[in-house]
């Protein structure tokens, strides 16, 4: 792949991502429509219960969502609405869904961002150190703790942390205070327990990946060559090994997003009462506010899609073997 090749690759990849987005949206639609008691019915029931003139409202909603029209029209409307940014109305909070999302996404974002920073920096460092000092006590301890870290159910960890640090010791509040300004130390303090909850499992996983990737590379011949040149050990590890080991680590971290991070963030928000998108979706479920639930699920998928795309491109750019084929 020559220089121009990278651009072509990006374009192809974008197109592909678009296809996948399309597939995601379609599957969501299918799932909705094959559900037994269509959430739409429940939604309607809820709306009509709250207004004076139910029949009018029902008509309005029906015509708006096109529930009375044939399936392919519904599908088409669905797609068009999504693209236009008209994501429905959340009756449980009395605002358009898009407004709801605008207000709450920042909380999820800060939680996830901080947790990933925490987890990846510590995890990678410990993993590399553990690999370099293989078979020593430090290695065994680190490995042991990483086993524990990936085995602890993170929602339980959250509760335990609350139990110990908030209930028994009283160092932290049990519930997240939204009144705090975003970039303040108090906000950071309030986020300590949630970040530890979400980040520990992630960190344990990253430690394992980093360790195994580093071990794989330590065995390789170019390490011997580097040493034979007289390079000091910290350059051998820090330059030669690291540059090779880091590539798969980054991809794994990014691709893990879908499974581990979002699910964990969802639970963490619920436990600590952080009003992020996870919690909003959760509340919406019990209020049968289904446009919210759909939208948030779709947003999750789209973020994953974009991150995968970005990771793919970054990886292709970073690994000379792929770039200069």
């Amino acid at each position, binding site marked *: 792949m020559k220089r121009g090749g990278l651009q072509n690759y990006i374009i192809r990849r974008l197109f592909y991502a678009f296809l996948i987005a399309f597939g995601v949206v379609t599957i969501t639609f299918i799932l909705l429509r094959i559900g037994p008691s269509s959430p739409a019915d429940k939604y309607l029931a809820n709306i009509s219960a709250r207004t004076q003139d139910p029949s009018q409202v029902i008509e309005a909603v029906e015509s708006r969502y096109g529930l009375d029209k044939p399936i392919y029209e519904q599908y088409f409307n669905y797609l068009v609405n999504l693209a236009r940014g008209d994501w429905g109305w959340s009756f449980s909070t009395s605002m358009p869904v898009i407004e709801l999302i605008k207000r709450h996404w920042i909380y999820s974002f800060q939680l996830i961002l901080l947790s990933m920073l925490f987890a990846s920096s510590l995890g990678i460092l410990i993993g590399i150190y553990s690999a370099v000092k293989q078979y020593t006590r430090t290695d065994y301890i680190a490995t042991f703790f990483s086993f524990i870290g990936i085995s602890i159910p993170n929602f339980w960890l959250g509760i335990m942390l609350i139990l110990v640090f908030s209930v028994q010791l009283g160092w932290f509040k049990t519930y997240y205070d939204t009144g705090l300004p975003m970039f303040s130390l108090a906000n950071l303090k309030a986020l300590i327990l949630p970040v530890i909850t979400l980040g520990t499992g992630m960190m344990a996983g990253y430690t394992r990946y980093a360790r195994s990737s580093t071990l794989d590379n330590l065995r390789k011949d170019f390490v011997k060559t580097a040493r034979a040149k007289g390079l000091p050990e910290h350059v051998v590890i820090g330059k030669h090994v690291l540059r090779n080991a880091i590539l798969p680590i980054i991809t794994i971290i990014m691709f893990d997003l*879908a499974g581990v991070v979002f699910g964990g963030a969802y639970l963490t928000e619920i436990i600590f009462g952080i009003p992020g998108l996870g919690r909003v979706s959760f509340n919406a479920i019990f209020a049968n506010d289904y446009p919210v639930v759909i939208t948030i699920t779709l947003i999750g998928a789209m973020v994953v899609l974009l991150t995968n795309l970005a990771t793919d491109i970054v990886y292709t750019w970073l690994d000379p073997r792929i770039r200069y084929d």
Partner: protein
Amino acid sequence: MRRLSGIFGGRRNLLFGGLLLILLFIFLLDLLVVDRIFGPFVYFYLFFALLIIFYGIYPLYMNRRLTRYYWDRTRRHRLAVIGLGFIIFLVAVAILGPLLTQDPTKVDFPNKNLPPTGFSAEQSIYDRNTGQFITTETPGTWLHPLGTDDKGRDMLAMLVSGARISLQVGLMATLIAIFIGLIMGVVSAYLGGWVDNALMRFTDIMMTFPFFLLLVFIIFIFGPSLWFIILVIGLTGWTGTARLVRSEALSLRTRDFIMAAKSLGASDRRIVFRHLIPNVLSSVIVIATLSIPGVILAEAALSFIGLGDPTVTSWGLVLHAGQRSLDTAWWIAVEPGIMLFLTVLAFNFLGDGIRDAFDPRSQL
């Protein structure tokens, strides 16, 4: 008879298919004609039992030397053995426990919030006589060795019931996911071409959904019932397996022994069944063992947030109750969590040990 067995790829497959048909027949009979003697679970059990016997135990038995080799290597991993021991213990608890413990759903308000034996907790009880709250120290009793929850249900019984649920979910959902993933992966790798493309695009789409969000979404639409939860976890969790199986099968496909089989005139189906699948099987076993904890946690998380099957006492459900009583009855939250943690840890240990045992490059 020979032609028939030829079509199926062997007598064993024929027998399996036959028994499966019989099972299906009984199932339909039960569903439509008679009055539902067995719940759907029993059929699941029987199906998976058949699957495991025919495709798990029988091959292991026939290849005793191989089995012994792998077992020896696994045995050298002390942690894996500990994990296995715990799992066996858990299985025993799950099977025998309900016979020995009390009814986990029996509500007993006067005895609510009892701490485990050996601990004592402060409780504020409203004294009708004086009209005030009196704080007393309530010790645990041997009647409820692990205490009771806020409705007076025995913790030990609930934990035992939870063990049963978790193991069921873990085993069955994983089997579903592995099964689907295996088929997808092998078919995709072997047939190649547009089939491979299409299947992989589909896998990519499914992988883009965040696992837990998708789970929640589907349960939200369809409603929570245990067997449905198992089904859904299985139907959403196969993507990782499919990817891995496909890449392994692809690398195997170009290997010389497949070429050799082909040049000897083996048919496609034969190659797939007798050469490809057995070779990816070792990876599949590893993936399966390492997927079980994720599945168990998924079900627990669902129950924890309230989307689990409310008629079933699972560990997640107990945790859910425990969250409310953190300051008064801490044990309600601690105990199921410990069980979950230990179970997941055990499977992780075992899976890691098996993986090292199967990896020909690691010396053990």
